[in-house]
């Protein structure tokens, strides 16, 4: 396959950045998208040019590091996969592919296609944990969990924090991420003590980080490589309403 790539190049956070066109020849349809970028980078290095910086780690869709806007789709045209799981057979010979970083003020570009997703860490730090005595593992059956709750919590726990929801959202909102990180705790008995202070803290941290507001447009759940459902956000809204309107809670766990 011969492809034309238009890639966002930005030397650093202060650089203005621009789209640069690179022709890439002899691409195998069996390559992953990141392997195709590796091929491009090897050629750039041999030619003495600066290789394209992009985030990646496990390359099997579970670490959440890789995140590319490919032809306007977060993680590319294939649903339910990350960019590293995307194969070049999804594209056709001679195609022009636009590759951009996630665009959000809360995710500033570090270099080229690499963004700083520290804002997600701040949301987690504001309440994405439980307070429990550590030590030896407790007896698994001492705290029963309803099967439906365990399944729904696990569905949310599949979130890898890649940021595709923010990248795809027309409002630049991180609500699907925040809701997933809340739900995986709020549906389980271990998450109950801090349930309502957690939701206020995490939503406050989300807003402070500069993410936009949710308008239930539903773009996030389409882009999500782990298929986190949109109704997760409804769960967040219900907990938030109860915490603020009924209980009068304040943030902090």
């Amino acid at each position, binding site marked *: 396959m011969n492809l034309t790539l238009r890639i966002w190049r930005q030397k650093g956070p202060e650089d203005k950045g621009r789209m640069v066109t690179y022709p890439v020849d002899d691409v195998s349809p069996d390559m992953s998208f990141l392997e195709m970028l590796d091929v491009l980078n090897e050629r750039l290095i041999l030619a003495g040019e600066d290789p394209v910086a992009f985030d990646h780690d496990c390359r099997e869709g579970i670490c959440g590091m890789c995140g590319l806007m490919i032809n*306007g789709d977060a993680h590319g045209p294939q649903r339910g996969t990350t960019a590293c799981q995307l194969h070049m057979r999804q594209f056709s010979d001679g195609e022009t592919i636009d590759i951009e970083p996630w665009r959000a003020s809360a995710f500033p570009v570090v270099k080229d296609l690499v963004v700083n997703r520290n804002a997600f860490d701040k949301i987690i730090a504001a309440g994405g944990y439980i307070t429990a005595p550590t030590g030896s593992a407790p007896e698994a059956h001492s705290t029963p969990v309803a099967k439906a709750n365990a399944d729904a919590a696990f569905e949310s726990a599949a979130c890898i924090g890649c940021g595709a929801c923010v990248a795809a959202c027309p409002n630049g909102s991180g609500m699907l991420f925040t809701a997933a990180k809340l739900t995986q705790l709020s549906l389980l008995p271990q998450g109950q003590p801090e349930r309502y202070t957690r939701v206020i803290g995490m939503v406050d941290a989300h807003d402070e980080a500069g993410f936009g*507001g949710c308008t239930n447009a539903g773009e996030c759940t389409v882009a999500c490589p782990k298929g986190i459902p949109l109704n997760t956000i*409804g769960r967040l809204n219900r907990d938030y309403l109860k915490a603020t309107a009924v209980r009068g809670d304040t943030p902090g766990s």
Partner: protein
Amino acid sequence: MAVTGILLVLFLIAHMLGNLKVFTGETSFDHYAHWLREIGKPLLPGVWFLWILRTVLVVAVVAHIWAATVLALRARAARPVKYAHRKKVRGSYAARTMRWGGVIILLFVIYHLLDLTTGTLNPVGDASNPYGNVVADFAPERWYVTLFYTLAIVAVGFHLRHGAFSAFRSLGQQTPRGERRARNAALILAVALCAGYLVVPFAVLTGLVS
């Protein structure tokens, strides 16, 4: 957005039911229109109730627009650098057109008040004869008015299709089955309100009401 939106939807339902009285004849429709100005009598003097209702509606509209503006400004601030290549929102056409649809609806409401409340833009404009105003408004030779009304009502329908679902979600609708129900309820509400509102101008246009 959700709370003010629900207030406005309740008004839309009441307004539509009132409009449908046009099919019960001129006397009945005019009687209904005059009654609207006097609800609450003798507990409240004259048009007090009407003005209380108008105040609530204006507050709801202003709060609704204010909340939408805050969301739009936050969205703009959240993505200062735009994508060079951006696909359209896949959620739905209704979700994608909420903001501009809202602007169109606002412009329509202003025209509608000047047309059938103050009578400024109405060919008859007689406050004591609402039936005559409506019939003159949607006369066949004024087809462009009917066309504009139709477009505006369809815009309201799209606005409600996403808006009603979004309101359920904002107020804590959280199960997948409930989501299907909420989306269906929003669609039914949008279609029913569109039909209820459009039947009046088209009845005048076709001579069913004259």
